[in-house]
């Protein structure tokens, strides 16, 4: 130990040469962090798309190949809404569309029901009213991307259905969620664009009091409705805040899923093997693929200091001591490099995001500093430098 302390006082490694290794470590860390932050940001945004927390559940069509393409009977919202313990029930018709040549998602909602699940702050114009029919409110990001302001008339072109609509922008909202990339419209508008009748919606989001009711109890109610449909008054009842009635539609209970909203979205990604762990592993693989460069840089440093190492060896320093000393000198650099790499990645991603280039399925990917990613970055850099130095030939 004392020998190592004495050796540390002897500065034989040249800073300029260490800098090359530090730059390579920084770039590798940046690469890893950009990959991990963006992939995990997408994963988090996608899974939180319908809401976070155990108290938000989704009633959806199991057969839908994407969360946006399934259809469920709209009147189930009314049935489920009357169950004790259900706080809010929001039927939603989600439809992709084209506005001003840009792809965007429009979500048909019943404003008062939607407001119980998502808090929206209107910062320009006004919010949708129950009697609005040809108006929309636009998320802040979408408004910036499409250059929209209240009062603007827009031509909306359908994607899933042969529809075109003329709508007026009523307000711009901010939700600090993926909703900021969407357009909200009265439920009918979503149904028109989705190409469905007034009796179906894409999904129903439900907020429940877990101490009173569970998702299983809601599924039971849905199953009961499938086997013994409740009698309707005329062709269907008109829920409050809705103009058109919801006709009773027959359905098979095995087609309907009732699940925690976040789990519902996760299950879609799971189908394709996309999990948080697999994305982190993928990012780590990207880092490991750049490890050969780090190893080469470490070897280069040792080769560049061959003369100094030989002098120290001839003065009696053991290989073990030299390797320990080199590690002690390089590790702080490595940690600084990985920190700079992570910070650089965040900066790069923020810039890309600022230019609207960080989008997946027309939704901005939010960047969040994940402690696990940062820790993994440090660990990988530490291991890589340690292995490279310890395996180095110091003859």
């Amino acid at each position, binding site marked *: 130990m004392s020998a190592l302390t004495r050796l540390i006082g002897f500065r034989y490694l040249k800073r300029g040469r260490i800098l090359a290794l530090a730059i390579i470590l920084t770039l590798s860390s940046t690469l890893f962090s950009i990959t991990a932050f963006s992939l995990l940001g997408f994963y988090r945004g996608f899974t939180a798309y319908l809401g976070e927390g155990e108290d938000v559940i989704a009633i959806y069509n199991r057969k839908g190949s994407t969360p946006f393409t399934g259809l469920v009977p709209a009147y189930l919202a009314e049935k489920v809404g009357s169950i004790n313990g259900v706080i809010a029930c929001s039927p939603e018709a989600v439809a992709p569309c084209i506005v001003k040549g840009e792809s965007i998602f429009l979500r048909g909602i019943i404003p008062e029901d939607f407001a119980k699940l998502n808090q929206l702050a209107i910062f320009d114009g006004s919010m949708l009213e129950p009697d609005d029919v040809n108006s929309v409110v636009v998320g802040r990001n979408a408004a910036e991307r499409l250059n929209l302001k209240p009062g603007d008339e827009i031509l909306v072109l359908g994607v899933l259905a042969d529809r075109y609509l003329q709508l007026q922008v009523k307000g711009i909202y901010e939700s600090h969620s993926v909703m900021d990339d969407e357009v909200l419209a009265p439920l009918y508008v979503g149904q028109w664009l989705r190409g469905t009748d007034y009796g179906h919606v894409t999904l129903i989001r439900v907020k429940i009091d877990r101490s009173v009711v569970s998702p299983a109890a809601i599924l039971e109610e849905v199953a009961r409705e499938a086997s013994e449909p409740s009698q309707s008054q005329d062709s269907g009842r008109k829920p409050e805040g809705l103009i058109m009635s919801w006709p009773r539609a027959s359905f098979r209970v095995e087609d309907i899923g009732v699940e925690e909203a976040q789990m519902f979205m996760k299950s879609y990604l799971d189908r394709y093997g996309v999990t948080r762990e697999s994305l982190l592993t993928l990012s780590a693989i990207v880092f490991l693929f750049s490890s050969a460069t780090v190893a080469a840089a470490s070897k280069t440093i040792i080769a560049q200091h061959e003369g100094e190492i030989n002098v120290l060896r001839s003065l009696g320093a053991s290989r073990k001591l030299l390797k320990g000393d080199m590690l002690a000198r390089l590790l702080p650099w490595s940690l600084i490099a990985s920190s700079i790499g992570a910070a650089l990645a965040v900066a790069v991603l923020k810039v890309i995001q600022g230019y609207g280039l960080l989008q997946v399925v*027309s939704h901005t990917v939010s960047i969040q500093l994940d402690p696990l990613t940062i820790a993994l970055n440090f660990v990988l850099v530490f291991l890589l430098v340690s292995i490279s130095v310890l395996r180095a030939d110091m003859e």
Partner: protein
Amino acid sequence: MLLRKRGMVSSILAVALLVAILASTNSIVNYIDLQVQTLGGLVNLSRTYLVLGGNATSITDSQVDARLARKLSNLSCVGYMLPQKMLTVNLTSGSSNLMVQMRGVESDAFFKARKAYMNGTAAKNWMEANVGEILARRFSIGLGDEVSLSFGGRQAKVRVVGVFVSQTQSDAELVVPMETANVLDGNNNTVSFIEFSLKDGVSVQEAVNRIVQTLPENVKLVQAQQMGEFAQQMSIQTLVFLNVWSLAVYAAIAAASYVVAARLIIESSYELAMLKALGAKKLTPFTLVFTYTTTVAFIGSILGTALGTVGAQTASTILRWIQPDVDMVPFLKAEQALQTLLLTLASSILGCMHPALKSTRTGHMGQPL
């Protein structure tokens, strides 16, 4: 001489692994892109088109010559043809006064095209109107009601002769014969837009080309359903991010090449010094280092492209064994492989430039022989 250096294999591997990241990511993105395009193709695309004013961003600010409809209807490829005038009018019904969207059309053809269910009859003259069910329910407008319409100082009184449902935006509109819309607008010569469909069986591309030739320059043709455009934008979003991300990989390749060149200079210091001592030109070490690094980058790029593509395909096969639902077949396009090769070479040249130039400045006097 320099190619025999023992570090060459590890140098090639360092570049190859970085290129493999790019190749595997590109191959997976290609597959996803293909899936998006295929899914887009599965949607039965409509044959409905709109002719709008050239500078129009919405229907209400669009103006098209009304005679254009007659011209288009003469084309054999055109199915139904609906010239329409869209106005936001003030509607007074009883004590209610509201702004509504009004559509002037040829009523019978319009409701037939919309496959609308009608309670009552389609409006036959300029004193009659049809109301969409959403609008009728919202403002309690019933069959037989008289409503007053005003637009730009002009007024008209119409009687509701039918309430309809079409599952389209017209359910929230007032639909009147074109004469009524012309009276309110005070202009018989223009319409807001022309909606038409292509006949079944005609080639879309040929028909569109023919129609475009017929149209004047001050109008534009828009397809109502934009599945292709949407799918394309999804791909572009992924590609844009991938391209930006690739910059970080190419930066790493440049840094790797710097290391490769620096290591070569150290390990070949004897040979380089000997060459200089024997009278080699000043540029010779530069050429040697440059050639070595670009050779490493070239071989590394080819190896990495193969490794990345095969690696992604192997991984997807293993994934298919574990999860039979996941059927992924990554592939790389030839032009992508070429682009990767060229960009790798460019990054490599950039990376090796500093050590290569430095090698020309080092004299042989201080070098060990």
